[in-house]
């Protein structure tokens, strides 16, 4: 590169730009990840339905009881910062985490609010933006040496975290979490006995077939190759098997979707997966929020506290906190006043998110809401800034542009939505 002058480089680049396809390839090449971003990975715990900020990470000790809600508060490891009393482990860990309060938007519809946060773009009728975890997925040919998918959703991805206008190959591969057998299940992974001959014959017939391949066919070939490789790879199968973890560690994460999902996520990112989304649904508590969060098998708040703190401890012990960014996020907060059914309704003007790991500072609470948790104290944080901050922590530039299908370059995260510098290391 040093022998090529900047000018000559741009001159060549502008000639290439005459061909839109090449221009797109060139843009992709220029957008090639830096060494930092190449090694870093993301684990996202998505609390689907709109987790109440007042009953988790932004409780109001001094507010009237219909705002305070059914739970007590406790002091956290950061002086003057309270969390819900049912999150004792996270409260004790808070001086190692980043807590964002006062996330605020006007989007009170589940799907739109989730897309706004997960894509970093205001939902639009004409362009479906990709979720930011997709920016970590492979775009090129599939590499048979590491057959694990680069982006996995457990057990499914919300719409906003899908590939949008990107090729479907950059979207998540969904795997079910089979708690009974302690494994991630990708149906039909095992080759059917007695079918090897047919597969070998098909490969030989394909070799005889001299017909050229269209782009669509090549895209399909990629998944076929990946399906064959993953079903034949012992390493891939081991990655999905949670029984290979010590029983004691599995118990520490907790015997529920969040716990085992986060444990599985750790196993996957350890083995080369770049992004794992754990989709925990059922946080839409319009009635009896105290029961919904505080009871059950296990109670939601206990499971949240247990699984996220266990993940932190586990990543730290393995030295993975230097490489993995962890985020706990939801589409919006819930109404500060309990409604007549003892529940809380949608409240997009105040919400929160929890982050930790690579590229992030420790023990920072950024943003705040007023005494009743209704509004952010200052102008608030727009949801796309969560994605911008996470991408920045992963070593990617959220202002980096990528060509949309019509050739128009659009930034990874909407213009003007900068990473939150105060929480980046």
């Amino acid at each position, binding site marked *: 590169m040093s022998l090529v002058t900047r000018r000559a480089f741009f001159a060549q680049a502008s000639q290439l730009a005459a061909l839109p396809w090449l221009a797109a390839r060139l843009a992709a090449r220029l957008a090639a990840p830096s060494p930092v971003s190449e090694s870093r990975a993301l684990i996202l715990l998505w609390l689907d339905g709109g987790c109440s900020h007042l009953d988790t990470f932004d409780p109001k000790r001094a507010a009237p009881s219909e705002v305070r809600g059914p739970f007590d508060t406790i002091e956290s490891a950061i002086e003057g910062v309270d969390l819900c009393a049912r999150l004792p482990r996270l409260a004790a860990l808070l001086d190692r985490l980043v807590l964002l309060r006062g996330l605020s938007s006007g989007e009170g519809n589940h799907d739109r609010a989730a897309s706004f946060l997960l894509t970093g773009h205001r939902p639009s009728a004409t362009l479906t933006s990709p979720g930011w975890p997709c920016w970590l997925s492979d775009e090129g040919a599939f590499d048979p040496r590491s057959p694990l998918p680069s982006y996995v959703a457990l057990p499914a991805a919300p719409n906003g975290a899908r590939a949008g206008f990107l090729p479907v190959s950059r979207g998540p591969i969904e795997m079910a979490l089979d708690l009974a057998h302690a494994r991630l299940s990708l149906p039909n992974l095992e080759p059917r006995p007695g079918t090897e001959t047919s597969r070998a014959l098909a490969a030989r017939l394909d070799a005889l077939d001299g017909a050229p391949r*269209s782009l669509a066919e090549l895209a399909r070939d990629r998944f076929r190759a990946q399906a064959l490789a993953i079903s034949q790879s012992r390493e891939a199968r081991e990655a999905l098997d949670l029984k290979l973890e010590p029983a004691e560690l599995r118990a520490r994460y907790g015997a529920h979707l969040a716990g085992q999902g986060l444990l599985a996520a750790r196993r996957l990112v350890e083995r080369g997966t770049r992004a794992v989304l754990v989709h925990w649904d059922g946080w839409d508590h319009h009635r009896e929020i105290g029961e919904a969060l505080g009871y059950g098998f296990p109670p939601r708040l206990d499971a949240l506290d247990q699984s996220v703190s266990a993940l932190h401890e586990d990543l730290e012990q393995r030295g993975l906190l230097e490489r993995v960014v962890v985020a706990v996020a939801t589409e919006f907060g819930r109404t500060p006043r309990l409604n007549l059914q003892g529940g809380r309704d949608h409240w997009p003007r105040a919400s929160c998110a929890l982050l930790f790991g690579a590229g992030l500072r420790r023990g920072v609470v950024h943003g705040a809401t007023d005494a009743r948790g209704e509004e952010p104290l200052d102008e608030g944080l727009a949801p796309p800034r969560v994605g911008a901050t996470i991408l920045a922590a992963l070593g990617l530039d959220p202002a980096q542009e990528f060509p949309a299908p019509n050739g128009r370059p659009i930034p990874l995260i909407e213009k003007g939505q900068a990473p939150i510098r105060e929480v980046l290391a």
Partner: protein
Amino acid sequence: MSLRALASFAWLLVATSAWAQEESEEFYYEYDFAWDIAPRLVQAGCATAECHGGATGRGGFKLSLFGTDPRADYDAIVEELDGRRIDRLDPERSLVLRKPTLDLEHGGGLRWNEDDDAVRVLREWIAAGAPFRADDPFVPQRLELERIESGLQRSFGLRVLAIDAQGRAREVGDRATISSSDPDALRVRGGVVTHARAPGWIFARFQQLDARLEVPGGELRELDAARADPLLLARRLCFDLVGRWPTPEELRRYLAWAEGERLGAYARELVDGAEFAAHFARFVDRWLGSSPGALTSEELALAPLDRIAREALRGGGRSALLRRRSDPRDRMEHFAGAFLGLRLECARCHNHPADRWTQRDHLAFSAPFVDPRPDASPGPFFDPASGERIEPRFLGTSASASEAAFAEAALVDWLLSEQRERFAENLANRLAAFLLGAGLVEPLDDHRTTNPPRDLALLRELRERLLAARFEARPVLLWLCATEHYQRPSDPSPEAPTAAEGLRRARVLRPEELLPAIARALDAPPPELQADASPLARELELLHGEPLERVLRAPGNLLEVLAELEPSAERALEELYLALLTRPPREAERALLLPRFASGAVRLEVLREIARALILTREIGAHR
């Protein structure tokens, strides 16, 4: 070709100096910003939405989108930043020249070389004091785009004329922005079409004006009579019309018909069957976004498309189709997309400089879809700029339509009488997409002057035929099947720009299309599939899943019948190939597969093994 034409072609090639020549009698040429400078910035791509034409500009420098506001652009260049963008004393040092020539760092890269004519013009304009307007009474009213024949195959020159109210013309080829509908099909360089490989359109844009020129397909030789292989055509036709592959028996009959007639005869046979009705119901589903409840699939296949529209719009604005959306703007956009082939979503928020429909049009056409019941839906609408209430009216008309769309008759009558042609053209395009895999206008709901059809003549023909057939789909589909447009080979190589060569776009069958077709080919009941699985999960399902296994082991399927009744391994193999791949096995394939039948006996296990292998080949999933 005349000498004069040749001369003017050569003249155009040196069009960079055309203006100077024309004006050479005058001693001194006075530059005019809107005439000489702004168009050159547009030409270099500076004023596009992704660069300085974007809503907030780029790097602190904003131009109007496509140079539509020369006064603002002039101020941005000459007045802003205390005039730092130009240097009247030393024009060479002007930022507006140093950046696009990459003398200084420029995010937009190299736009001009130092010896480009545009650079000379800008330099002279700055040296002359960077005036906004010379005293020039010539105000262009329209633009004309003409061909100048070169005498060479598939290349020609272009003349762009700006014409004023008095009919006076000026050549503006050196400053107009010239582009083509598909750079792979029609390559334009320096105002000359250097390679015309497929039909398409050339566009010229100058100031607020634009013009276009069609390059019809007829004159391009590649398209002559290139037809796909007859067996492949039968496979294509059968799948397109009924969603399965031809049976060996159908194939034998097809090949027995006379060569010129067999495709048409086969197509007629297919569209008359019940399978077509079931398959065509999916077309209606995609067209309307749902199925109009009152008609059965058989009725759908037989009903004229205007009747289906009438049925879908039963109840007008309160029809089930539109009522699903609560916002009248969503209802209107869905209506416009499905029935008029117009994409009005963009105009909801802003006027698009290259489109005819404005934000006011959008609101005025949304207003009839407002549910008149109190508080039933948002509306009435007000002009965002003036705050003035917007009166409801149908798109493109001035007559008020006060909540008329809620009366079914008004909406349907307007669509089927006043908008009859547009409705027919939209459906003609959708029918073309049903058979060709892609519409002549793509996206299907994006008919507009700046997005002309790939083949205008074909679209017109289809529209006229649809009108003549009183909106019956089948005669139009049958006609299209019999044309060369449908019978073109598909070239799936990624290097070849398929659309550009006028070839058909090959595609990969989705699992929900592929597995039922396999089941049908093997005479097995249709399998149940996972819904909405990821591509990796679907490949795994095909490789190792239960559905395929059930098809291969279905009692009485083709494999069992062959094992029972066919003594010759060679014939059994051919039958399997015909059923699954619509062709006999090639020599090399025979050599590979026949030895699997030990001692020549046709055993069920071996047939199953071979069928499974054929199903796992790449060939079976490619729709070519």
